[in-house]
C-alpha cells in the first residue's frame, strides 16, 4: 500500500500521515479512561503515572514489558498478515494456544538434546502446529466458502478443549506432589535465554517482523497477497491463483501465531499450563489495527499494549484502580483507531489515499 508507492519528497509528512490516527486514537482512549477514573473517584494522573512507572520504572519492569510484547508481536503479525490478504484471523488465539501446547510437549518430552537443536525444534513445532491449525480454516475459506471468522472462532473453542484435555489427561505433569493440570516443566535445554534484560524471544519477534515487512513489500508473494486482499477478482483475472494464496496467507498467519505460543512456553512460562495464554490472540487484533497492518509498526504497538499490560498491576497496587480500566482503554482505542471517520470528523483531517484498512468482506463470499 503506501510503502509501495515511490517515496515522496516529504517523508516526514508521510510519517505524520500514517501515525496521526493511531496517535490520536491513543490520546482519546486515555482521555476516556481518565474520565471514567475521575467519575469513579480515582485520580487519573496518579493512575497513569503508576501505569507508566510500572512499565518503565525499573529494568525488571521493562523486561516484563518486553516479555509481554513478544507474543503480542507474533499475534499482531499473524492478524496483520491476514488482514493484508483480506482475511480476519480471529483464530490467532487458538493457533497460539496449540503452538504453546505442542512446544511444551516437545520441550518436556525430548531429553538430552543440546539447546541449539532443542530450542529451534520447539519453535518449529509451534510453527507447524499453528500453520496446520490455521490451514483448516484457510482451506475451508478457499475451497468451500466457509468464512474464516466463523470457522476460526469455533476452532478457538476446540483448541481450548484440546489443550485442557491434554493437560489433564495423557500429558499431565505426574511429578510427585503435583495436583495441578499442566504439562511437566520443559527441559533446561529448551529454555529460551535472555541476553541481559532482553529476552531472546523478543529479538526473534523483532526479526520476524522485519522479515514479514520484507516479504510483504519486496516479494512477489507479498505483492500477490496484497492484491488478493485489495481486489480478489482483479487478482484472479490477472492470473493469480487466489485460492492457493488465501490458504498460504492463512498458513503463514497461523505459523506466526504458533511461534508466538512456542516462545511464550519456552521463554516465559517454562511449561504449558491452561489459563496462561488467554487473550493473546485477541490482543493481536488490537495490535494489528493500531499498527495499521504495518509489520514495523506492529513492534511499536505491541510495545505500547505490552507496557499497558505490564504496568497495570503496579497501577492497581499503588493507585488502587481495578485492572478492567485497561480493557476499557483498549476497546476505546480500537474503536477510535478503526473508526477513522470519527477522528477525521473531529479534526477535519484530509483523507489520504491507501490508508484504509482492508479487512474482510462478508462471510458468504469468496
Amino acid at each position, binding site marked *: 500500500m503506501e510503502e509501495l508507492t515511490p517515496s515522496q519528497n516529504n517523508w516526514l509528512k508521510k510519517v505524520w500521515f500514517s501515525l496521526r490516527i493511531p496517535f490520536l486514537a491513543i490520546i482519546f482512549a486515555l482521555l476516556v479512561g481518565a474520565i471514567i477514573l475521575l*467519575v469513579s*473517584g480515582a485520580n487519573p494522573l496518579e493512575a497513569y503515572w503508576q501505569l507508566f512507572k510500572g512499565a518503565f520504572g525499573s529494568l525488571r519492569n521493562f523486561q516484563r514489558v518486553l516479555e509481554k510484547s513478544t507474543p503480542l508481536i507474533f499475534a499482531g503479525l499473524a492478524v496483520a498478515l491476514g488482514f493484508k490478504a483480506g482475511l480476519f484471523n480471529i483464530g490467532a488465539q487458538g493457533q497460539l494456544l496449540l503452538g504453546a501446547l505442542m512446544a511444551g510437549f516437545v520441550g518436556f518430552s525430548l531429553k538430552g538434546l543440546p539447546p541449539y537443536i532443542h530450542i529451534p525444534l520447539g519453535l518449529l513445532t509451534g510453527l507447524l502446529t499453528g500453520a496446520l491449525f490455521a490451514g483448516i480454516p484457510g482451506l475451508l475459506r478457499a475451497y468451500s466458502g466457509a468464512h474464516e471468522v466463523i470457522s476460526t472462532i469455533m476452532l478457538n473453542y476446540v483448541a481450548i478443549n484440546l489443550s485442557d484435555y491434554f493437560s489433564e489427561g495423557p500429558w499431565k505433569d505426574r511429578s510427585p506432589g503435583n495436583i495441578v493440570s499442566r504439562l511437566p516443566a520443559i527441559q533446561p535445554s529448551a529454555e529460551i535465554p535472555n541476553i541481559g534484560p532482553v529476552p531472546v524471544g523478543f529479538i526473534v519477534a523483532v526479526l520476524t517482523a522485519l522479515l514479514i515487512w520484507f516479504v510483504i513489500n519486496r516479494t512477489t508473494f507479498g505483492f500477490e497477497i496484497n492484491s488478493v486482499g485489495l481486489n480478489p477478482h482483479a487478482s484472479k483475472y490477472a492470473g493469480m491463483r487466489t485460492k492457493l494464496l488465501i490458504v498460504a496467507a492463512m498458513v503463514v498467519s497461523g505459523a506466526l501465531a504458533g511461534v508466538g505460543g512456542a516462545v511464550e512456553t519456552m521463554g516465559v512460562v517454562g511449561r504449558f499450563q491452561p489459563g496462561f495464554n488467554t487473550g493473546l490472540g485477541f490482543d493481536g487484533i488490537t495490535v494489528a489495527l493500531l499498527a495499521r497492518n504495518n509489520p514495523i509498526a506492529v513492534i511499536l504497538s505491541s510495545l505500547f499494549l505490552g507496557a499497558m499490560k505490564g504496568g497495570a*498491576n503496579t497501577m492497581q497496587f499503588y493507585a488502587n484502580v481495578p485492572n478492567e480500566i485497561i480493557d476499557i482503554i483498549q476497546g476505546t482505542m480500537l474503536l477510535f483507531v478503526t473508526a477513522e471517520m470519527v477522528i477525521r470528523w473531529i479534526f477535519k483531517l484530509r483523507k489520504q489515499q491507501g490508508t484504509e484498512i482492508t479487512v474482510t468482506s462478508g462471510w458468504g463470499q469468496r
Partner: protein
Amino acid sequence: MKKRLYSILAILLVAGLLLGACTPKEPVAEPVVEQPVEQPVEKPVEEPAKTFKVGLVTDVGVVDDKNFNQATWEGVVAAQEELGFEAKYIETKDAKDYDANIQLFVDEGFDVIVTVGFALGEATINAAKANPGVAFIGVDQFQGEEVPGVAGLIFDEALSGVLAGVLAANLTESKTIAAVLGTDLVPPVVNYNRGYVGGAKWVDPEIDVISTYHPGGMDVAFTDPEWGASTAKQAIEQGADIVFAAAGNTGNGALIETAQHEGLFCIGVDTDQWLTVPEAHKCLISSATKDITLSVVELIKLAYEGKFPAGNYVGGSSLAPFHDFESMVTDEIREKLKEALEAYNAGKIELPDK
C-alpha cells in the same frame, strides 16, 4: 473544528457521567494503607514497634468472589483487626503476572504474603526461595517437599465432602442426590465429589448420586451460573431432592435454582454460603467448608510471633452451621455425622476415583 472538538468532549463527559451514575465498584475495598501499628497488649515490651505488613495475591479473578479469594481476604482482615497491621491485596488478571504481583509486595517489604489458589504454587515457591525472611502462605497449595518460608495451607476436601454426603443421604426422601461441579481440572473439586459420593454410599449404598462436571475449560467452568442453574434443574426434575454445588459462581447458580423449588435442600461449598448467597436461604442447609479464614488467621498469627511453619499446614474441614435448619437436623443425624468423621479418619469410608 474547535466547536466540534468541544462538542465531542461534551459528549464524552456526558457519557462518562452516565457511566458514573452506576455506582462503580470500589477500587479497592479497604486496604488500610499506612495504618499506624497498634501494639497488641499481650506482646512483650522489649520487642521494638515493628511494622508488620500482610499482602494477598488473588488467583486470576477478583477478591470479592464469594469464594476462596474472599474467604482468604476475610482471614487477613480478621487477623488485622486482632493484631493491627497493614494489609493490602492485589487482584491477578493474567496468570503470567503471579510472580510480578508477589514481587510488588516483596519490594514494599511485606512480611507475610498470602497467595490464593493452587495455580500460584510454583510462583510462590520461587518467590520464597528468592526472598528468605518473607513468610508465604499458599492457600490450596500442596507442598511436595518442604520449602523454608512457605506454608502450604491445604484442606481435606474429601472429608467435608463426606460430611455433606452423609448429611444429604440422611435427608433425602427420593434416594437421589445431585452434585453440580466445576471442572475436573481442579483437584479440590474432584475431592469434594469423591467425598460426597463416598459419604452418601456409606450411609446407604442404594442411594443414587448424580453428579456432573462443567464441560468448559478453566476459564468458564466457575463463572457460568446459568449452566449451574439449569443443570441443577435437570437433576431436580429427575427426582434429586438435594443439590451439592461445588463450582464457585457456577455453583451459586445451582444453589439459587434449588431455592426456587419447594422442599429441597442445597449444600454450598468452601465457605459458609449462607453468608454469601442470601438468595439460597430457602434451601441452604449447610456448606461443605474448609476453614480458610480461621486457618489464615492462625498462620498470620504464627508469622507475627515468629513461629511460622513450613511445609503443609492442614486446615480444618467441616460443615457450616445449619442456620434456619437447625431443627431439621435431628440428633440422630448429628450422631451419624460424628460416626462418619470417625469412620473417615479410620479409613473406613470408601471413596470413588473421580
